């Protein structure tokens, strides 16, 4: 593995980290795998695209890029609130079993994707080039500027998230709720507000990752199926741990770039699957090693 591959891998991994953390946040608090996150990412990729096209006439390069990110992030956050309201609020008040959350989130994901398919009619779009596709040289190695930007923006948004989680009151509330939702309720906390805040945060992350995915690949309604990468990263890192998801995502990014270099892009998913299986056999708790108990 060369240093160059490592650099590319980390930059890919940072995008995966955004996906994985957005997914882990919800897992932490409601204890189910939120498949609707994928549909949300597809929608926000389109929101970002529309924002970019509209704003292109007024601003360009870096401000345009940032404006696009903000639009997609806000769109994602609001959409996540809607998703929570439609798909999960009633389930929570009914005390439904986890299976129902599950099926509800998958359905929501497929629904969002197919609404997009109808309106975008499966056409492929691509983002306007925000920045000249230049590269920066570090001695022998090169980094493309878009990659560098993605790395910068994803690490800083993850940094902000970690700050919010650990240093603010709402962050404390979210962590309390993920620890034990019933006790938190008894202490007089409003679960609806905290869950909504968590969904908003996860939607913001989903929005940013949607834009990055749209830039990295082309824009199509099934873009959100990249959520698989977030899942795999969470499995490697350990479900229910945010740091685990981060580590898993970067590892996965590096691994994928390496596999693409050695066995080709087509076979990479097969090997990633095998690695995931081996991981589950040897260390089912993932790297972070948090044991998530099935609640009786």
């Amino acid at each position: 593995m060369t240093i160059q591959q490592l650099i590319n891998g980390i930059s890919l991994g940072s995008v995966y980290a955004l996906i994985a953390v957005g997914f882990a946040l919800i897992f932490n608090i409601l204890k189910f795998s939120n498949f609707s996150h994928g549909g949300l990412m597809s929608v926000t990729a389109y929101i970002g695209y529309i924002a970019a096209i509209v704003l292109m006439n007024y601003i360009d390069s870096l401000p345009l890029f940032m404006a696009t990110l903000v639009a997609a992030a806000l769109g994602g956050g609001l959409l996540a609130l809607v998703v929570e309201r439609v798909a999960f609020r009633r389930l929570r008040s009914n005390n439904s079993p986890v299976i129902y959350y599950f099926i509800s989130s998958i359905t929501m994901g497929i629904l969002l994707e197919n609404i997009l398919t109808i309106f975008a009619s499966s056409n492929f779009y691509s983002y306007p080039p925000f920045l000249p596709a230049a590269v920066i040289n570090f001695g022998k190695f090169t980094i493309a500027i878009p990659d560098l930007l993605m790395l910068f923006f994803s690490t800083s948004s993850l940094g902000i998230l970690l700050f919010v989680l650990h240093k603010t009151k709402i962050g404390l509330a979210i962590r309390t709720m993920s620890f034990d939702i019933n006790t938190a309720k008894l202490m007089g906390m409003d679960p609806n507000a905290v869950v909504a805040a968590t969904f908003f945060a996860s939607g913001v992350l989903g929005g940013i990752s949607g834009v990055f995915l749209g830039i990295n690949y082309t824009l199509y309604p099934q873009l959100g199926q990249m959520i698989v990468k977030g899942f795999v990263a969470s499995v490697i890192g350990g479900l229910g741990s945010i740091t685990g998801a981060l580590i898993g995502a970067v590892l996965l990014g590096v691994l994928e770039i390496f596999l693409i270099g050695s066995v080709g892009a087509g076979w990479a998913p097969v090997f990633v699957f095998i690695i995931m299986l081996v991981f589950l056999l040897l260390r089912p708790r993932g790297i972070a090693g948090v044991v998530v108990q099935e609640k009786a």
Partner: protein
Amino acid sequence: MEYILSTLTFTGISLIGVLGVYLVTGLTGLFSFGQAAFLAIGAYVSAVLVKNFAVSLPLAAIIAMLTGLLAGLVVGVPTVRLRRDYISLVTFGFGEAIIATLNNSTNITGGATGLSGVPQYTNFWVVLVTVIICLAIVIGYKHSKYGRQCLALRSDELAAKAMGINVERLKLITFLIASVMTSFAGVLYVFYTSYVEPGAFGWVVSAEWTIIVFVGGINSLTGAVAASILLTGLPEMLRFASEWRIIIYCVIVLLIINFRPTGIFGENELSLRRIKQFIRKGAKAA
């Protein structure tokens, strides 16, 4: 007539898939998003054997089912010990990996363009008989010791374990039965259409099967059968625009989950006794 028969045949084939999902999801409460990959395994293994190696059809079908069993073991053994979420994640990855493999081994499977020119051996009646046999197996399983253990496991895994049920073995057995059944459906599929491509087996197909089980009612086999006839057969016949069809599915499922979590049929099953009861009630009322 030809058209109706072919629609019914496809409905029958997907009904077998739905029955597999019913075993895994409805009875045991696990989620498999790679169930369609077993369809792919059955279809490709048998088609390649018959077409390229001139193996006889029954032997090819048996090998296809064994391959499905093997794949089920590979996926099942590491995952049954873990939380249920993992099963859905792993089966999901498994499905995608199978599709990637099919897409890439161009010299054997024809890659993304698919495999064509498979002789047509199956017809509606073969499918019908298979559906009836599978239905019998599933009904038998549901009412056997294992089926009841599955129900216990679904509602509370910890309690089931405490009652001495070997939860892991039970999950694995159920998963394997579903795998083999779905693989056989794949054999039927390829020898009916005489053409397969990897794109037909994506996770959306698996998710659609799961949705069908839910719409019918997770506790009711009758519900699953009725829902799959309703949701796959009718739209085909009425020529719905396929994209709107999925949206309608999704809205129905969201409504059901939110307002009638037990599904259309709830716990009810169609049986002779029930019909008699129903008629008697009607007679009294009249």
